[in-house]
Each structure stands twice: as C-alpha cells, then as structure tokens.
C-alpha cells in the first residue's frame, strides 16, 4: 500500500477501519509474513519437542535421578533439590495443557532448564559458553566455503576455461560426497599426527587459560584450522556443483549473447553478466543446507573434541543430561529458523527481479 493511497484513505475513513486497514497491510507485508512463518516453525518444532518425551512413556530425567541415587556418593546431597526443581519445572501433577503452556512460557523467556549432571548450572550457562566457539568456527567456515565453492563452480561452468581445470576440480567435487567427520579424521592423521604441523584436538592448548593475549589468539587459530578445513573441503563441492549448473543455464540467455555482441571483455562478461545472475540461487541454497552444516559441524567438533556445541552435546548424551540435550536442540532449531528468515528477507534486496508485493 503506497503512502499516497493511504493518505487519500485517511481523510475518508473512520479511525476504526483505518486501523484494520493498517493491520491487514502490515500482515500482508512480505517481511511480516516471513516472520510469522518463522514463529510458526519455532512453535511447531517446540511442540514436537514437548510431545516426544510424552509419547515414549519413559521419563529420562526420573531414570537418571534414580540411577544417581543408586550410585550414591557426592551426587546424593543435591538429589532432593534436583528432584524438587524437576517436579516444579514439569509440574507433573498438573494437566497436560498447563504443562504445555508452562513449557512455552519458559521458551519465550529463553529459560531452558537446569542441567542434571552439573546440577546448579543452568542449560543456558552451559550452552552459551560453547555457542561462541561453534558460531565463530561455523561463521568463518561457511563464508569461506561459499566463496571458494561458488568461484570454483563459476569457473567450471564457464565454456572458455582452460581445459586442464577440469581435472583439478573433479576430485574436489567427489570430496563433497565424503562426510565431514571422515575428512576430519584423515586430516588429523596426516597433518596433526604424522606431520605434527597442527594440534591434534581441542580449542586451545590444554594447560592455558583463555585470555585476551596475542599468543592465545594464535593458539586458538592454530586449533581451528583443521576443523575448519574438514568442513570447507566437503562443502566446496556442494557449492561448486550448484554454481556450475546455474552458470551453464545462463549461457543460453539473450543478455549473454548481447554482451558478447557488444564486444565486452571476457572477464567483464564472466563477472557482471554470468556470475551476477548465477549467484542468486546459491543464496537460496545456503538457507536449505544450514541444517546440514550445523549437524555436520556437531560431528566434526566431536572428532576434534572442539569445545563447541557438538562436544557439549556428546558429553550430555554420555551423562543422559536430558535438559542440556533438549536445550541444544531448541537453540539449533531457533538458530536455523532465524538464519533462514534473515536470508528470505534479504533475498529481494539481492535480486531486484523479485518484486515484493506490499498490499
């Protein structure tokens, strides 16, 4: 709804209908629609997460507490407090819908509960500490893989490329079929174990305490190189395949023939005409594979004992720390849904051909 028409309507209608108009206008807006879908995804996902434990008929928390009680020892002291906190959290005597509403209320407040294995600590506390490591690694890696892979695919799909390039890139494409954590194991063996160029595992040297010094930063980067390359190597192929297909599709377009007829330089046709147009579907691809990237990285972190979410998840599974596992699942789904929402909203800015209808 443009401002002009709105102004005309303002003078002729009462405030009541005006408000309804504005509300429906806002609801019809593309960004709002995407945001509502984002909320819908998060709501449906959390409902699934709420239902799963109740379908199985088992109670992992109670079982875990019983197990600890049988073992006795140091855990015994916290047991009462834990049980109380647990009862209060789930309100097990209350009807199902009250439990459900309480669960949603806690989610809105981003209160993910209390760890069972490390009792007084909250899930938020445990997860957010490791989230930094995961996000730092994943951000760098995803952007690098996207750029390198897209570039590789663009050159591969370009008819005027040197012939020998084919033989270099084909093995790279095959790498995309190999799971990231297996590449991680190979990298550890060759580079960290045999050649001893880089550290074997961890996020920083075992004896050091995280500080803001130059030495520590170098140490962190040295530890991040191998996990990063494990993910980059296998992701490059994915981006290259998609980009190559799009490049081939642009070859037949009229604007390519026109650019050629105008006698433009090859490099200009390549970057401004072919790549610019072939790039856009790649951004949509990014939204589709975010989930795969995250789960892949969780396993790579496990292989490297990298102090990110993957390592926390593994520890939590080993200790049957139900709330931590649930918290990690919720946070990852929130993150993926949020990132997809952002990509959806930014996409029309990148591609002016997609007109966003405002009314």
């Amino acid at each position, binding site marked *: 709804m443009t401002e002009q028409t709105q102004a005309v309507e303002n003078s002729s209608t009462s405030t009541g209908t005006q408000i309804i108009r504005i509300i429906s206008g806002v609801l019809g807006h593309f960004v709002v629609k995407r945001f509502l879908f984002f909320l819908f995804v998060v709501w449906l996902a959390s409902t699934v997460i709420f239902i799963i434990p109740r379908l199985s008929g088992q109670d*992992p928390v109670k079982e875990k507490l019983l197990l600890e009680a049988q073992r006795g020892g140091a855990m015994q002291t916290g047991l009462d407090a834990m049980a109380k906190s647990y009862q209060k959290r789930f309100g097990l005597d209350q009807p199902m819908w009250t439990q459900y509403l309480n669960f949603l209320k806690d989610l809105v407040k981003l209160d993910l509960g209390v760890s069972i294995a490390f009792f007084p600590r909250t899930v938020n506390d445990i997860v957010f500490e490791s989230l930094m490591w995961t996000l730092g690694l994943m951000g760098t890696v995803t952007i690098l893989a996207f750029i390198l892979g897209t570039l590789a695919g663009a050159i591969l799909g370009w008819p005027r490329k040197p012939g020998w390039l084919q033989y270099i890139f084909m093995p790279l494409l*095959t790498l995309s079929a190999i799971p990231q954590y297996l590449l991680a*194991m190979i990298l550890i063996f060759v580079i960290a174990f045999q050649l001893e160029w880089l550290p074997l595992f961890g996020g920083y040297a075992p004896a050091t305490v995280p500080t803001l010094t130059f030495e520590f930063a170098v140490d962190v980067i040295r530890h991040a190189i191998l996990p990063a390359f494990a993910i980059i190597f296998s992701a490059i192929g994915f981006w290259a395949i998609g980009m190559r297909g799009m490049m081939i599709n642009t070859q037949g377009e009229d604007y390519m023939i026109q650019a050629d007829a105008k006698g433009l330089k090859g490099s200009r046709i390549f970057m401004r005409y072919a790549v610019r147009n072939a790039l856009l579907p790649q951004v949509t691809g990014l939204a589709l594979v975010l*989930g*795969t990237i995250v789960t892949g990285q969780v396993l790579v972190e*496990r292989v490297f004992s990298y102090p990110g979410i993957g390592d926390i998840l*593994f520890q939590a599974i*080993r200790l049957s720390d139900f709330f931590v596992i649930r918290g990690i699942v919720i946070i*990852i789904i929130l993150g993926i849904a949020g990132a997809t929402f952002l990509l959806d909203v930014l996409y029309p800015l990148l591609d002016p051909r997609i007109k966003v209808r405002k009314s």
Partner: protein
Amino acid sequence: MTESVTTPDAINPAESGGWSQFNEERLTPMKKYALRNPSLIVGLSMLFGMLFLVGVGHLVWDTEQFRPLSAPTRLAPTLSHELRDGTTGAFPFGTDTQGRDLLAVAILGTPLTLRVGLIAGAVAIGLGTVAAFLAAYYRGFVDAAIRSVVDVGLAMPALLILILVRINIGRELSIDEIGIAIGLTSWVFPARTIRSQVLVMREQTYVELSRLSGTSGMGIIFKEMMPNLIPYITASLVGSVAGAILASIGLEAIGLGNFSEPTLGMTIYWNIQFSSITLGMWWWWLPPLAAIVIVFVSLFLISSGLDEWSNPRLRKRV
C-alpha cells in the same frame, strides 16, 4: 553434471576402428547408453565390487570374531600370530583395543550399514512420494497442509530429532529400528522435490487428455504419471540412501548406536572413543573409513548418473 573426466564423445565408433564397430552392432541400446554414462557404470561397479568382496569374506572368514575379547588386543595386521593356546592365527586387518578381529568387523559392518541406508531410504521415498502426489495432485487444503509440514521439517535437522527420540526411548535401537526412525525423519526433502516434478507433469497434455477421457485420479497417478517419474524417484532414492547412511553414522558416532552391532558407524565410534589415531593404530580406522568413502562416492556417482538418465537435458554437458 559429474560425468567424470571422460566425455561421452570418448566412445566414438568412427575413431576406435573395427573392433568396437563389431561390438557396437551387438550392444543393446541399454548397454550403449551405459557406455555414454560412465559415472553410473563406475559407481555401480564400485558398489557391487565391494559387496562381492564382502560376500567372499562371509564365505571364507570366521565372522564370529567380531565380538570383543575374541582375539588378542592391539594387534597390527599380521598373517601369523602365535595365540595363547600355541596355534597361530591370521589377522590380516589387525585387532582393536577390545580384541575384535577387524576383518570380521569389516565383513559384517559394511552390509549392516548399507541395510540401514536401504531401509531408511525406502521409508523416506515411500512416504515422500505419497505426500508429494497427494499435495500436487489434489492441491488446495491438502497441498497447503503438506507444504507447511515439509517447510517446518526442512528447518529441523533430522539428526537432532533422532537424538531426542532415541534419548527418550531410553534403550538401544536395533539396526532395522534405526533405519525406520531415520526414514521417518527424512521424507520431507524427497516430498518437496517430487512434488515440484508432479506439478510440472500434471500440466502436460497427455495428463490433460487422460483427465478429459475420464480417467480417475488414481488412474492418472499410477498409469500416466508414475511411469514417467520412476527414473526421478530412483535418483532420489539413491540420494536418500546416502543421506540416511550419513545420518546413521552420525547417530552412532555421537554414541547413540547399537553397541552390540559392528556397523561402520560403531567402528568409527570406538575409534573416536579410544583415540586410535593418536595411538597410531591406523589399521583400526582405515578400513571403516575406506568402506564409507567407497559407499558415498559410489552412491554419489550412481545418483549423478541416474540424474543424467532421468533428465536428458543434462546429457552431453561436461
């Protein structure tokens, strides 16, 4: 797409002389096509070559030694090792820190992992195809409902949902149960892609014609659309199998597999758990790793070969 380095033109009867011309006449069109589509052939022969070796292994090797403590521990590959009772035993793949014969593990584990993938792939493609046809053929409310389920499903990583389900079940799942669970969580992607194929197809003239001549909805789906979609569905099936194997190994590597089955994923789990790499026990992690790489690369080649088969527009492009 990835027809590997040989171009289809490499098999050119005019260039390769009399022998190939003789053969050319006798080759059926299917075989001729296979020669033009090397990735399908290479992929299939890799997969079946490995299965053949596994089959031979089953016949000649004592696979009962996959259990822990059935062999000496931490043995590098050897053909003659003196056992405690004085006899000599051969361990061509070595043994691990818990005393498994790793050759037996490799022989049993490879088909088990493929089985998880096949079960999950079949479940996922079955559900996905049904959902896709329901959505694309009947449109309206059905389509809207299925589409939103698919959209939400795509936003939730299957592995995480599997972890939650497995934690709540609270017991180890059997191989078949893992396969079914993975299938149930991974049908949304095939549903989405097959749906868009059906949408294109239902506008085709032969479908219109069939509708005009009074064929029922089910008749159109099974007699007109299905036969044309089979190549595409087969290609998606291969993709789903690969995805399911990836998910099952992920689930096992993170410690939620079946601890009494010697699958490739469980072997990877034990490797990470006992940090075999830092122990220098290369013979422990190399066979499962090689097997997994062969499985994935061959499935990747098969699926791109099938892609070319189902989508002729991809042919002849390098």
